[in-house]
């Protein structure tokens, strides 16, 4: 089975978010770009599956939709261990536009498992994975925190309210993964970084696809009132404030 891991190139999660002065676009000056944290976990799990010889996994490909500036992030994914990378050459559109690009790549490549993070840490759309599956007309399972093979059969562990379900899914499928899918994201070793330079990174043209939504403007949250400090010897006062001022007790 070939695995496709969809990678979103996002600002580092510690980035201080700024917008252009007209508030119409994200100001990316000085921003460090990373693999979206959930996508990084998906890639880590894909590598673990491939490295265990008892699993029928032959290849792990990573794909991202973006400008040439997204390539360092794909190289990082190659350094972590992916066999090859694809960049769909497009200035990222909305979730539907991006999903259409990824679905086109997934359909072309005979992938059995398509892994996507449950959301991206920038626009928090939680949409791309599910959209890919619907465009392709294949099954999807969301909130996946475990993936394993039983022979040729794929068993996904899905989080439900108050518990977990084990779900058997026929290939090809889309698994939308979250925390727990891998213990910790894998860090590229020096050898991986050297090898990544020689691994194939293919650039493909974007396909025509519609955007269903657009961002009109961005705003920052209202500044919060300063924290009211209570002396550690006066816990009673805190309880009084919670009961009579905040009215939350």
């Amino acid at each position, binding site marked *: 089975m070939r695995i496709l891991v969809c990678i979103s190139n996002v600002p580092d*999660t*510690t980035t201080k*978010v700024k917008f252009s002065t007209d508030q119409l676009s994200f100001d990316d000056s000085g921003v460090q770009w990373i693999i979206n*944290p959930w996508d990084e976990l998906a890639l880590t799990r894909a590598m673990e599956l491939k490295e265990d010889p008892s699993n029928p996994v032959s290849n792990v490909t990573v794909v991202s939709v973006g400008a040439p500036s997204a390539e360092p992030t794909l190289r990082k994914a190659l350094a972590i261990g992916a066999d090859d990378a694809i960049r769909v050459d497009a200035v990222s559109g*909305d*979730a*539907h536009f991006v999903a259409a690009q990824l679905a086109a790549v997934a359909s072309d490549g005979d992938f059995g498992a398509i892994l996507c993070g*449950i959301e991206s*840490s*920038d626009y*928090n759309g*939680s*949409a791309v*994975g*599910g*959209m890919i*599956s*619907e*465009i392709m007309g294949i099954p*999807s*399972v*969301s909130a996946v*925190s475990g993936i394993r093979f039983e022979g040729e059969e794929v068993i996904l562990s899905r*989080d*439900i*309210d*108050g*518990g*977990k*379900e*084990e779900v*058997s*899914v*026929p290939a090809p499928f889309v698994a939308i993964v*979250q*925390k*727990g899918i891998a213990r910790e994201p894998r860090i590229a070793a020096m050898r991986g970084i050297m090898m990544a330079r020689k691994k194939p990174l293919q650039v493909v043209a974007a396909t025509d696809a519609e955007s*269903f*939504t657009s*961002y*009109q*403007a*961005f*705003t920052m*949250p209202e500044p*919060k009132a300063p*924290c*009211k*400090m*209570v002396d*550690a010897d006066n*816990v009673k006062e*805190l*309880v*009084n404030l*919670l*009961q009579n001022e*905040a009215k*939350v*007790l």
Partner: protein
Amino acid sequence: MSVLVYTENWDGKFKKLSCELVSYAKSVAALLGGDVSALSIGSVDQDELSSLGNYGASLVLSADGAPSGLDNQVYTAIIAAAMEKTGASVLVMAHNNTGKAIAPRLSVRLKAGLAAGVTAVPESAGPLVVNKKVFSGKAFAKVKILTEKAILTLSQNSFEINETGGSASIESFDPGVDASAATSIKDVQKQEGKLLLTDADVVISGGRGMKSGDNWAPLEELATVLEGATACSRPVSDEGWRPHGEHTGQTGKIIAPNLYMAFGISGAIQHLAGVSSSKCIVAVNTDKDAPIFEAADYGIVGDALKVLPELISEIRAAKAQ
């Protein structure tokens, strides 16, 4: 233009989230000048179904013959059929596991722009423009829907429940779709009767400042006193002090309780992303410069392990009055 709201049930029962969703749908419908229909999938009794009328649904479609196990393709087909039957132009769902699983598929199926994780009624109807959080709560964006239909998924605990005193007619609904699921559920492990972290009005949370997983008893006691749930920061779940399901933060659970109390949590930006929508935040930390105090409404600089016993007894005393 009317609104369809999908109201999920839990073992045949609705919960606070369901009332919140219908109240939200009613406000959206008021903006558009239409009615609210609710869709229920699986077996739910008549009294429970008609209770949705009290929050603004005028019609409840009950697809009671449909399978209760979640298969994304089957549920997509059922909800799409209900959209067609009601002629609704807006679909409202929860931004929870189920909503995240199905809303994107429906967006493609119905050609309906999706705004995920909204917290307020759209600010305009034509075109539909709605505010949502982006960058994990660090900013807001106005999302414009470019399609005729729209899907809005509502963040839990973000909308005030509004009882209208209305009543709903109930109609059995046969979606007429192929219910054979591609996926099959092989095993279910579920903890019965435990308050879910995402449903809790009060959340008591501990971080590295609790020093050890063995020190959790006072946090659990406080959660019991306040009828809340316990949570933790990422290092705590990474260390294995607490289960991963209790991790709140950017990559863990995103919660919005009425009261969030953070003990020994410094408040890294990733942690705040998961809890900043809480209505009231209380922080106890030894470091007066910890970033948690910038997000908190009330704070104590002190050792959580020393503050907790006194806090528990004071809260017990206050509640006894």
